[in-house]
């Protein structure tokens, strides 16, 4: 376990900012204690200082997970957000998409969101903007990238994709082994 290098921090923050924008500083400066990002097994964990101290007792090969896993660095040193980060993305998300109950299940099985399943969308979402996907009852379901801007969404036909799927909470079951 080690702190992130500058490059890594930049890559990760760039990625995070696609979803939560400048709210990223709320993650770093928290009123309830200091939190930090740590790298362990190529994965980035978001941990409070207290837990971090305790976790140093555990040898590297025995430590499986600590705090919340945000995502991992790929072999090409890109950062990929995991669904486990949703708990911290959802409250700070700037752009949101709500899916209708009928399409909820489809999204949770890893499919893109179609226009027909689009319930609501934040105004002036740009194309390729990172969005957090909610159900109509405001339960965060995952996140993705807007395929069309809000304006375009109004015009397109019902079967066209409006949000590209990136991660959904169905992965907790589907890919339990690769979460961390």
């Amino acid at each position, binding site marked *: 376990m080690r702190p992130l290098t500058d490059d890594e921090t930049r890559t990760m923050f760039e990625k995070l900012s696609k979803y939560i924008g400048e709210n990223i500083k709320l993650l770093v400066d928290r009123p309830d204690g200091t939190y930090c990002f740590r790298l362990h097994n190529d994965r980035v964990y*978001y941990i*409070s200082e*207290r*837990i971090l101290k*305790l*976790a140093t*007792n*555990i*040898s590297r090969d*025995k*430590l*499986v*997970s*600590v*705090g*919340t*896993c945000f995502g991992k660095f790929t072999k090409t040193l890109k950062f990929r957000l995991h*669904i*486990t980060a949703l*708990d911290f993305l959802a409250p700070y998300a700037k752009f949101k998409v709500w899916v209708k109950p009928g399409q*909820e*299940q489809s999204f*949770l099985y890893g499919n893109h969101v179609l226009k027909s399943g689009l319930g609501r969308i934040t105004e002036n979402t740009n194309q390729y903007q990172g969005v957090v996907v909610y*159900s109509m*009852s405001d*339960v*965060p*379901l995952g996140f993705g990238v807007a395929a069309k801007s809000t304006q375009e969404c109004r015009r397109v036909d019902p079967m066209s994709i409006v949000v590209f799927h990136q991660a959904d*909470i*169905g992965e*907790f*079951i589907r890919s*339990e*082994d690769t*979460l*961390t």
Partner: protein
Amino acid sequence: MGRKLDPTTYVKRGPGRKSRKQKGAETELTKFITEEETAQKRLSSRSRKRAGKRAQVTKKPKVTAVKEEPNKGFTDENSEWLKPAKRKREADHIDDDDDDDSDSQWEQEEDEEGEGQKKKGKRQLIENDDDDDDDDDDLVDDYGASEDSGEGEKEGESDEELLPIEKAAKKQKKLQEVMDQETDDDDEEEEEEEDKDGEKSGDEDMDEEDTVQVNIDEMDTFKLPKAEDIAKEGVMLVDLQTIHQRIKDNVDVLSHFSTKREGGKDRAEYLSLLKKDLSTYYSYNNFLIDKLLEIFPVSELIDFLEANEIQRPVTIRTNTLKTRRRDLAQALINRGVNLDPLGKWSKVGLVIFDSSVPIGATPEYLAGHYMLQGASSFLPVMALSPQEGETILDMSSAPGGKATYIAQLMRNTGVVVANDASADRLKSVVGNIHRLGVTNSVVCNYDGRQFPKVMGGFDRVLLDAPCSGTGVISKDPAVKTSKDESDIQRSAHLQKELILAAIDSVNAESPSGGYLVYCTCSIMVEENEWVVDYALKKRNVKLVPTGLDFGKEGFTRFKERRFHPSLKLSRRFYPHSHNMDGFFVAKLKKFSNTVPTTTVDNGAVEETEPSGDVKVQSDSFDEEKPFKAGSKNKSKKQKPDGKPVVSQATANGKSAKSIAKKTQKNENPTVPKKAKMDNETEKVDKEINKSNIVKTDKETSKEGSRFQKKGDKQRKSHIQSKKRIGKNKFNKLKKLLKNEFGNEHL
């Protein structure tokens, strides 16, 4: 598009529906009569046939002797050659009767109707006799003879049988009809075959009847089957119904043994039969049945075994980090789930009765609003009652149900360390922790036994020890047959090691905690009370109430074993009485961080022993109160973060206080612990609270003198064991000592 049928080329197949002949009134009459008949005897159609046959066999032959004569022949010669044919006729008649089982009834009816005719006929015959005496002499003779013989034979029978002629005529007619109809012939053949079968199965029938008879007997008094019967059962197919009945009767006898026992049979015989029956009926191995029989009284055992055959209700736990129970219940009801609150004792549990959607894959589940968790798994966490901001260890956490519950009770403050020995199973822990939004967790993959070396100083520790799983047989029926004595011993041994490691990980000085909850999903005493009792003797812990207001008290005595009386504070849960998995929960409080060391053959400790002025501290053999004894050996030891152990002990001998301290700052600090483990496993108990080893200075030990020392020490300790100082005095001493020496050594 299919081809249309050309009506011109259409060929009729078969006679068509309307050509079928409508049945006459006789069929209806049959129905009517059969109803009456069946009301009398409740037998299957087969057995009715057989019963009818048996009746025929007894009655008919006599009839037939008379029957044939009027039709076939009127001479003595005829009667002679008819005799051998009789038997054949009999068979035929029987066949006939078998043929039309239902018909035979209305046939009889006809017979009854025909009574008048018969009488008429007889009268006619008599008239004939009167009229043409000469002509019909033979006839008359015949009749007279036949009637005589007939009457002679059937004196006791009813009037109907007294007039067999008409009946015989009917039979004859029927026979002819039968001969005419091919189909009937076929039937006959079948019947004949069946008859053969019937003969074979006749014995079985008798057996059945016998068993029925036996069962009726059993209602009154249950008799033990003889040894040869039992032996036979082993070979033959066993009837589960019979065994079930026998178990019930046996239990009844055993519960009122003095009144219902069979003379001359003792309890052991009944019990051995019961054990055998139970293991057959519920398919357990003998070992497990024996074990269970030791735990439960007989009648309760049956309940337990029955309860293991049914699944426990599916329960879920609301994740209060993300939602409230009411909201969750509403959301699930909207998805077509039928649920109810779990019970008064839980504010987060819900019972699922049935569901139209898979309960483990709803969007709510994926969003982490609830966790599928057995009701029994709530209990240890509730007993642990974690407080906010504490550091808590879940020693064997997979799949994370209890660990996340702990985090939820702490509202994501403090730290939960979720450990498990299996790396594979940890994946589900990680998944669940993230799904339920737990952020204060550390997941690690140690063997629980090594844990005190890694980390210590926890406020609370939950040890859900790996066990034989005898409480969750309904979940995993393989337990029924797969476990034996060695499995129990093995897991008990592991549990003893784990509980000591768990106790060592707890920080007794924690302001809010210092608690350990030990639980297993086993109901074996070896894995529960025994393990806790062992821990009470080995460490400075005491049992405290679990805070669960239901459940049965733990055993304080079991067979020849006597456990510490405080073990009644532990709680047992059974599937049959609480409708949750079998479970054991004990809550321990650690009141001192000292590890009471065993002196006698602790080589590692001896190594550090000074050779010179050794004063031996008193010890106690008081097994009943190990922790009290332990408190005497108060010392400071082992900062939880695994630093070398420094212990300081006070000794007391003949009012002279000798101050001693033991520095385990040896070459290898882990050695003492290891050695101790070995001791513990070898000599399971007896001499536990042997006093701490006492040393005055940091002198090195001399290997040669060690064993002599040991002997001396033992003797002295025996002498001194009677005289102990009181607690208060001791505490004073301790304080004094702390002031004087504490700072240097700590």
